[in-house]
């Protein structure tokens, strides 16, 4: 049994689409932030699969540092995801203090 690149990519696409569905269909901001994390995880998995593919194909020519580029990408995405979650939840707390609601449709102060 072997693992091919396109199969990994289909898995990533499925997870990303489920995340998009969560963002579009939910009203609770906490669940929307969780769906964003799902999407970021799908992208992370895609980056890792691509990196693994290029290492397998061109492994002989790559240096050790060059082969780790995909991993560095994922680490940076992970750091940004952590920052996003922290700021998002801080905004949620501020909004809840002001309006006593976590529903996105209640936040229409900037609506034209």
């Amino acid at each position, binding site marked *: 049994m072997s693992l091919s690149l396109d199969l990994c990519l289909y898995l990533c696409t499925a997870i990303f689409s489920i995340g998009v569905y969560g963002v579009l269909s939910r009203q609770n901001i*906490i669940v929307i932030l969780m769906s964003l994390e799902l999407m970021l995880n799908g992208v992370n998995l895609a980056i890792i699969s691509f990196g693994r593919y290029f290492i397998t194909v061109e492994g002989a020519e790559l240096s050790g540092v060059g082969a780790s580029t995909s991993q560095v990408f994922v680490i940076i995405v992970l750091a940004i995801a952590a920052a996003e979650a922290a700021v998002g939840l801080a905004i949620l707390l501020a909004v809840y203090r002001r309006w006593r609601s976590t529903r996105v449709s209640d936040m229409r102060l900037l609506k034209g």
Partner: protein
Amino acid sequence: MDALVFYISGILMIASALLVVTRKNPVYSAILLVVFFLLTSVNFLVLRSPFLAVIQVLVYGGAIMVLFLFVLMLLNLTEEELDEKVDPRRKLLAGAGSACLFVLLCWAVSSSERIRAAGAVDLTGKVEGKASTAGETREIGKALFSEHILPFEFTSILIFIAIIGAIYLTRTRRTVKRENTLTEEPGEENS
């Protein structure tokens, strides 16, 4: 064997992701999201990225989920507040939109010549040469602190700004008024 582990955990990942976005109670969503992160780290291990698998469990499964659950417990939402009252038409539209996105992305993947040519390559196979140590902590450290030092520093600045932003957003503005309400409350209970 490795590929079988990937398939099983991939199917479980999709199942847990679907449960995360469909559960009514956000606490269930959070717990299922932990399961999802653990399965993702299994897939990282199959793709020979042991350091990232550990980081995934530590940062996502530990730090970010604690943050989510902490906020959930802090807000202490009632049954009424948890009721989202989502229009079924909106759900249908969201489902159709994300299904369209899924089909489009799948079409993009399947129509790519390069990815089709890559189908013969086994991602779990052994790698010869210098790149055989790729994914190990030592190599990632070397790459992070030599070639990718600039993005690394920018990320540290970004996290610093995020910390300041989070503290600024969650501060309580009128502490004096809060103290007043705290001292008033026992009196109200007595009367």
